[in-house]
């Protein structure tokens, strides 16, 4: 589904991603871990098409398309969804209105007619249950005055509504208490199926306890330096990133 080859990207002339290689197949959940500044969120932003980041090399194939050639909106319409670490407030635009616009823009791109009010409401109701989102949130301006948990739940709710092929969860667990974390993780789990893939970017093991990733990758200084199964995450939790750093610098030296 997603094939990243030797991806390099820089911001303001400083190279952040220094040759990322990653293959993600449908149905898989990949976790990307790593210390602060290792390039995790940059990777998410580059995949989503944020323009501050300059891609200086490599390729990204998503469902047979070179997505680096696509605008951010077209990447989204093709089925790439980024759950933001810091969801953005848009005053005066209700969550419902925002999502309806997004859903129908996507439908338009795929040559489908917009959803009528009744079908849209039906879809909303169905998906609301998945993420245990409060109804009152949907009439409020999107993300405005939302708590950290509400913002993240709202991201997952949008994910549910847009039914993306590939979801990138960018530190979705940050700032969540245990209950919110469980709800968010359950929501994601309910949306998992063999046709969809998920990339989870996180610092911590706790989200992975719920999500049970198929693969875990460690990002260090703009490169994936170690890949493994979920046991790798447990090892990281136990030993910290230092052991990887040591191991990595050792192998670099050799």
């Amino acid at each position, binding site marked *: 589904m997603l094939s990243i080859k030797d991806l390099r990207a820089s911001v303001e002339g400083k190279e952040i991603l220094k040759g990322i290689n990653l293959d993600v197949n449908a149905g898989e959940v990949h976790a990307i871990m790593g210390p602060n500044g290792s390039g995790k969120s940059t990777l998410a932003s580059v995949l989503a098409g944020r323009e501050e980041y300059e891609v200086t090399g490599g390729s990204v194939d998503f469902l047979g398309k070179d997505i680096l050639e696509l605008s951010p909106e077209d*990447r*989204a319409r093709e089925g790439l969804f980024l759950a933001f670490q810091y*969801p*953005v407030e*848009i005053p005066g635009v209700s969550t419902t209105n925002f999502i309806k*616009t997004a859903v*129908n823009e996507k439908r338009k791109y795929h040559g489908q007619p917009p959803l009528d009010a009744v079908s849209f409401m039906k879809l909303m109701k169905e998906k609301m249950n998945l993420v245990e989102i409060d109804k009152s949130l949907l009439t409020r301006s999107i993300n405005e005055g939302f708590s950290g948990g509400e913002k993240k739940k709202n991201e997952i709710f949008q994910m549910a509504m847009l039914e993306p092929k590939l979801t990138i969860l960018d530190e979705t667990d940050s700032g969540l208490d245990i209950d919110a974390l469980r709800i968010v993780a359950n929501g994601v789990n309910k949306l998992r199926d063999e046709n969809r893939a998920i990339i989870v970017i996180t610092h911590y093991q706790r989200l992975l306890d719920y999500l049970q990733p198929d693969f875990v990758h460690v990002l260090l200084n703009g490169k994936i330096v170690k890949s493994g199964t979920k046991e790798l995450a447990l090892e990281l939790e136990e030993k910290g990133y230092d052991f990887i750093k040591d191991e990595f610098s050792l192998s670099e030296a050799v």
Partner: protein
Amino acid sequence: MKEELDVLEETVSRDYQYGFVTDIETDVVPKGLNENVIRLISQKKNEPEWMLNWRLKAYAHWLKMEEPEWANVKYPPIDFQDIIYYAAPKKKAKVNGLDEVDPELLKTFDKLGISLNEQKRLTGVAVDVVMDSVSVATSFKKQLSEVGIIFCSISEAIQNHPELVRKYLGSVVPMTDNYFAALNSAVFTDGSFCYIPKGVRCPMELSTYFRINTENSGQFERTLIVAEDESYVSYLEGCTAPKRDENQLHAAVVELFAHRKAEIKYSTVQNWFPGDENGQGGIYNFVTKRGICMGDYSKISWSQVETGSAITWKYPSVILKGDNSIGEFYSVALTNHHQQADTGTKMLHLGKNTRSRIVSKGISAGQSQNSYRGLVRAGKHALNARNYSQCDSLLLGDKCGAHTFPYIESKNKTAVIEHEATTSKIGEDQLFYCRQRGIDTEAAVALIVTGFAKEVMNQLPMEFAVEAQKLLAVSLEGSVG
């Protein structure tokens, strides 16, 4: 919701939609302004002598006045001798019904989407259409007259209700008020008159569509609305103008008069031709709008969505004379390209326990300049006067300007005046968030701007809100990379 999406679709690559010219024979007075031209206008309109004298007095006063220069707008000097002051579509006979109206004219309205037939049949809105200067058709008169409401052109009112016109004309905006009001008083050609008798709640929204048609003909509309005790009226004013290269002057005067416990709601969608991308052409819109809450417990509410005109100079105001009276001003002013807007309001608190509320939303894009200018004054006797003002500015790009000029004068210690102001830019973060959800930049801007203006849009009558929302999106076309 459906409409919102239509708006988004329509946002893509569209030029000024209403830029066409209707080919109608017009009856034009030669260019220029002097006493004879005023006599000619008055004569053509078959006016009584008191009206002519009133005009001449205003003209004499105007000659002694100087064009104001305090507004934050720049434009070349206006040559008042190069303007046609009267242009009326030639009437073949007196119009009794729609079927007698010039078909060309009806076609124009069709293009504007305001076909009288449709309006009459579907919406139940009475429309007094001002095509250039003379009202050519007025509908729903019968239904209104059954409850005693007078809704007609000001020319007709001068003929048929001279006692009301004489009593109220110039009572809120005196002919000496300002340069453009004096000019209007001297040469106004037509406009609307509305009288709501005591205790009557107007059964429909009253609506007038204005349209400038003859090249070089300045439009000098005069509107007068009088609401007697315990009456209510909601009045809609919307305007579109054909595309022109030469600047056209528009200097209207609107007067609202609210008696005890009366309420007047006046909504405007203003979409005069704003000039092209390079600032060529466009309407000069110098308007004086003022209402007086004369009676206790009366209320006047102005709502406006201003997207058009090269230059807008407009301060719908309320004089809160009656005790416990309320004044409101809700405004969205959007400027793009080289447009300049200097708009706001004045809330003049004279009576006790008077309240006013100002919500102004300015949106600037391109190289435009958008100023809010507002005065809140609490007079000596305005015990417990309250005002709340909120002025928000939204900037698109970094070549435009937003300015706020709040003036507060309080002569009464019990008055409480609050003013809040914010300036924000549409952030890259907001745009990227939208785009990541599949909403392209243009649609995202429309969404964000609509959200920004929501508080004001909510004040507009439904059918107007839809049009206004479309206007916002269309007016911003091409404002983002």
